[in-house]
Structure formats: structure tokens, C-alpha cells
């Protein structure tokens, strides 16, 4: 951690994003778990519904209607058509029954034709939950880097395109919630690898330039443990000298060559990644906190690892 930790738990709406494969969902789950452990009522929303988020709590996949999947944790999957139906019912008093019908077709069409409609229905639903205050915190397992910009920029884009009409009236209050750094924040997840790091740097700039949402933190996931300090490394090199290695193998009753080789691989991996981490930190605004989460050497992912990650995140946040 480089600067004062943001109080992510004080926010109302947190978007968690990052390049595919960096553990975005894992971090969203950890933040959700951490907030719940602090007594908050949390809504975790999966936008690219694949069921991964609920799986991290060992619960069955969720749908548009939030369900309590763990104490204090409600979970839902975004469905833009259901969101439109809810919107029409609540805001415009147009009840829509059933899925099939002209409306579904019309919706599909308008959503494809008018850019931003799907995006605004997603962001709109999330902002709506914040405004209604049913939950203390809404955590969004948001789409990968490039897509999230489109979503977060949608209210502004719609504002630019649509001059009048109800949608126009609806975007103002969304923008208000999204632009308020005391309510809304974005967490970019990355790993200490080349592509994720450069994408994170790009994302940081684009979030600033193209949206009104404030970036709260960068989370670096899968940070490998530092095996040795300098002195340890010198000794390690002494142990790797062929004759010494042979003596060691003899004493141990079997070849230790691959054990030492495995450690060398671990050290190299850690070192390559450390370079990317430095590059990331140098490229980020100095006041943007960088939180580090460990690489987990576990069998599988589930409730146990979600708790471990929540604990690690809590430590980084100073809780």
C-alpha cells in the first residue's frame, strides 16, 4: 500500500473491473465478504452473468431478483430486459407481463439501434438500488476494462444524444450518484503482468477523461511471495553449486535438484512480476492507492478462499 487507504466500505456503489483473467470476480467477492463482515448489508451484482460470483460463495447462480446467498449478502445477475420491465413498471406505470411479445422484440431492436440503451439500463438499475437505499453497499462485478467505460459513460452519452424525453430526465440523477466520490468508486483489478498492467494504466486515464466516476484504488492480485532477501539469495546460490547439491541429496536420501530448480522458477516469476508492479506504480497518479493481494496456493476456489481474500483486502485497507 503506497498511500492512505480509501475507505471502500464507506462508499455506496463500487464498480470492480479489470482485464479478463485477473481475478476481477474474486476481488468483487472479497470486497462483498469484507463489507458483510463489517455488518453491512451488501448487494453483489454480476453484470456479465456467468455465475462465477455466486460460485465464490458456494451458492447457486442468481437471477435479476436479488437473493440472500450468505449472511448479509444479496446477489443478483443483471438482465437488461428485466431491468427495462422494472423501469417501465416503476417509473412509467406501464405493466409488462410475460417475456414474449412485441415489447421484447421492440426492446431488442431499440437496444441494438440506439447505442447506450443496454448500458443505461444496467447502470440505471444499480443507481436505482443506491438511491432507494435498500442496501448499505452495492458491489458490481463489472464487465472487463473496455466495456465498463461504455457503461459508465452511457448516462452522459445519452444526455448528449437525447435532447428531450423521459430518458433524458432519468440520466440526471444517475449522473449525480455516479459523479459523487463519496458515494461511487471504481476499483481496477490487475495482476503484475505486462498486458494487464498496461491496460490498467490506460483504463485509469480513460476513466478520468471519459467518465465522471472516480477511481478509488488499484488492486494488484496474484502477487507472489518474496522467497528470499539478498542474504538468503546468496546462500541459495551456494546450495545450488553442484557439489553442495550432491551432498544435500545424499543426506536427504534423494535428489533435491528439482526442488532447488522449482525455487529458482518461483524467484524468477516473482522478479519478472515485480518489474511490472514497479512500472504500474510509477505510471499511476501518486494519490491513487495500490492494494496488493496474494497469489493463493489452494486447491480450488470457494467460500474458503473468498474469506482469505477478504481478510487480505481488509489488512490492506487497514481494517
Amino acid at each position, binding site marked *: 500500500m503506497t498511500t492512505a487507504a480509501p475507505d471502500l466500505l464507506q462508499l455506496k456503489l463500487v464498480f470492480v473491473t479489470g482485464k479478463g483473467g485477473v481475478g476481477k470476480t474474486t476481488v468483487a467477492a472479497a470486497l462483498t465478504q469484507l463489507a458483510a463482515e463489517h455488518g453491512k448489508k451488501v448487494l453483489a451484482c454480476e453484470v456479465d452473468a456467468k455465475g462465477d460470483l455466486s460460485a465464490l460463495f458456494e451458492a447457486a447462480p442468481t437471477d435479476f431478483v436479488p437473493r440472500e446467498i450468505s449472511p448479509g449478502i444479496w446477489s443478483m445477475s443483471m438482465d437488461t430486459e428485466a431491468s427495462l420491465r422494472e423501469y417501465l413498471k416503476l417509473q412509467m406505470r406501464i405493466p409488462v407481463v410475460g417475456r414474449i411479445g412485441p415489447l421484447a422484440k421492440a426492446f431488442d431492436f431499440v437496444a441494438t*439501434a440506439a447505442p447506450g440503451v443496454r448500458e443505461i439500463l444496467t447502470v440505471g438499475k444499480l443507481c436505482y438500488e443506491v438511491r432507494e437505499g435498500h442496501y448499505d453497499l452495492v458491489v458490481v462485478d463489472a464487465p472487463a476494462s473496455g466495456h465498463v467505460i461504455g457503461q459508465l459513460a452511457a448516462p452522459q452519452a445519452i444526455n448528449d444524444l437525447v435532447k*428531450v*424525453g423521459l430518458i433524458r430526465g432519468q440520466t440526471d440523477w444517475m449522473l449525480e450518484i455516479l459523479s459523487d466520490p463519496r458515494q461511487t468508486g471504481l476499483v481496477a483489478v490487475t495482476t503484475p503482468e505486462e498486458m494487464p498492467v498496461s491496460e490498467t494504466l490506460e483504463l485509469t486515464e480513460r476513466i478520468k477523461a471519459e467518465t465522471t466516476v472516480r477511481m478509488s484504488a488499484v488492486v494488484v492480485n496474484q502477487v507472489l511471495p518474496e522467497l528470499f532477501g539478498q542474504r538468503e539469495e546468496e546462500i541459495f546460490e551456494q546450495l545450488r553449486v553442484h557439489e553442495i547439491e550432491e551432498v544435500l541429496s545424499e543426506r536427504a536420501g534423494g535428489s533435491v535438484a528439482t526442488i532447488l530448480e522449482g525455487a529458482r522458477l518461483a524467484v524468477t516469476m516473482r522478479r519478472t512480476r515485480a518489474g511490472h508492479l514497479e512500472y504500474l506504480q510509477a505510471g499511476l497518479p501518486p494519490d491513487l492507492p495500490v492494494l496488493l493481494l496474494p497469489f493463493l496456493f489452494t486447491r480450488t476456489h470457494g467460500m474458503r478462499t473468498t474469506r482469505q481474500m477478504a481478510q487480505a483486502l481488509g489488512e490492506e485497507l487497514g481494517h
Partner: protein
Amino acid sequence: MARHRSAPENQPLPHSLGQLLAAKEIAIACGPGGVGKTTTAAAVAAMAVVEDGGRVLVLTVDPARRLADALGLKGIGNQEIRIADEVFTSAGATPRGELWAAMLDTKQSWDDLIALHAPDEETKGKILANPLYQNISGRFVQSHDYIAMERLYEIHSEGKYDLIVVDTPPTRNALDFLDAPQRMADFFSSRLLRWLIVPYRSRLVNAATKPFYSVADRILGTQFLADISEFFILFQSMYEGFVERADAVTRLLSDRRTTFLVVSTLEATPVREAEFFSAELTERQLHLGAIILNKVLPDYLRDPKTAKLAQQLTHRAESLADGLTDDPVVAARVLGEVAESFLNFGVVARREAEQQAEMRGAPDILVTVPFFDADIFDMEGLLRLGVQVWD
């Protein structure tokens, strides 16, 4: 029936990626994000040039900056450029053919497509200036999917290359780009499209469509609807060209000359996505040529004998290290750490090996690429990866 012994030269070659690609014109690398898809596509294309020769194009989306720089691709766009032979020779390889590269510029590709289909200069100008068009082509990512396949079609039909290796854009859903051409065709032939355009031409609203318009008007506002309709009236002039083209693109993807390479790692989520992807390709009767698994940990980490030894090392580090170095205390600690690290990575390696064994729907070409010590950022690195997957 007597067993027929064929002469050695008639025996089928062992099925390998190299053999597969020698018989194809298009290889589409797809799979989850963050698994080295772009690098793998470039490596495969480079190998094809070294091994088989001919003209090979890699159509890429977003290569890592250092790799792009090393190949001399800085600042390239839609225009294909040739990678200099020196890039190969300085990596110790001899190119038997030519390697070309192009990067997908979504906005430019859309503009080119409009220019191609527009009936006249005036329509073209109007569409390019339309704010709705600019939004679709620039800001919204789904347009990526279609345009990538469209560019592939365009380049392939020019017939300049023996092999085109395509790196697919990161999509919301791994399959979006496969559906994109069909979606585009459906979209332009939609009845709703006609509904939407009609009233602003004739202002005649019939009883069937009236409820739709009144809702649409209330939600979107009349002005916006008018904007949409103007846009589609312009687009209508290009309707047939678009639909025809989208159909042709779909046909090309399912053509025998096209194969798909699913790229993944052995981490849990990518494996699940890769399995899903393989199943979908098979169901759509598209050719799943190979699965390429990147960043696979070395086998020795799973050796049970060594694991036992490592266990012992953690318990007896002090006595084992005694007298071997100039600092027995640190040596004991180092040995303990080393053994612990081996066991930790062993857990991951065993989990991943099991994932690989259980992988469903795998084609007969399934290749693994070891975890490389360093990042791949030049031709030497690409070929090191390429050699691993080729034979």
C-alpha cells in the same frame, strides 16, 4: 482380410498443429481473456513462415507494446505491413516466406465499409457525419466483433495470403464474434426496422404500431427517434450489400479452409470458458482444430517422491544444511523456504494437471506450453513458444 502394410511414406503424419495449419487458409485464435491469445497467434504465424514459407498474415487486435515495438509494428493500423526478414535472422531463424501484420482499427474499418457499400458520395458523407453512426462505430464495443470478421473476409477474398492467423477481440461473451455477422444481417432485415422508419416518412401510424410508438416516444423523445430513423433511412440504401456480406462472412467461418484454435491456461475460470467454447464450436459445426494451453507448470512439481523429500526438508532443514554454507542459520531458513515453495507450487501444478485430464471435448491436437521465465516480447520469444506447439 490380410493386414495391409502401407509404405512408410503413405502413413499419416502424426497429427500436429504444424500439419493442420499447412492445410488451412484461416486460423482463428479464440478463448478467454488474459491467456496469451495475441502472443500465441503471433507465434503460430511466425512459425508458419519459418517452417512452411508462403505469405502469412497475422491480424491482431492489441499486441503488447514491447512485442509490437520489437516486430516493428509501432503505430500500424488497418494497413497490412511486412515484418522485416532481419527480425527473423536476428532471432537466429530463416524465414522461408513473408510475415505480414495488421492491427484492427474498428473505427477505420467501419468507415471503409460504409465507403464500400454507400450508393453515392452524399449518402456516405451523411452517414459518416451522423452522431448515431459515430457512437455505434466508435464507442460501443459490440461493433468490434462484427468488424473483425468483416476485415478477415475482406483480406481473405483478396487472395494475397496463404495463411491468415486471426487474434479475436476480447468479447463480452466468447462467442459474440461468431454471431456478429448473423446478428448484423438479422438487424438489417428486421421488420421493426421498417416499422421504425415508416412513420417519419409518411406520418401514417396504423393501429398495430401505434402503441409501440407512443411508448418509444415517451421513453426516448421524438427528436431522438427522428435521428434514429434518419440514420436507418440512410442505411437502407446499403441494406442488401450488408446482408449479403454478412452471409458471406458466416459462410467463410464454417468453410473447410478455416480452423479455430482455442487458447487457454489451466486456471479454473479459463478452463471452464475454453470447454464451453469447444462445445459451442462443435455444436455449430465449426472446425475446432486444436487447444493450446499456455503457462503450464513443469511436471517435476507433481513428482510424488520429490514432494515427500520436500516434506522432509521442511522438518530437517537445520541438520541437512549443516556445514554446507558459510551461514548455517540462514541456510536452514533458505532450505525450509525452498521446500515450502516447492510444495505450494505442487498444489497448483496438481490441480492444473487434473483440470487438463478432465478437459471435455478436446480435439486430438492438445498442446501445452511451459511457463516461461520471462515475458515474450520479441521474435526469439515468439519462436520459442512456437516450437513448443508446432510438432
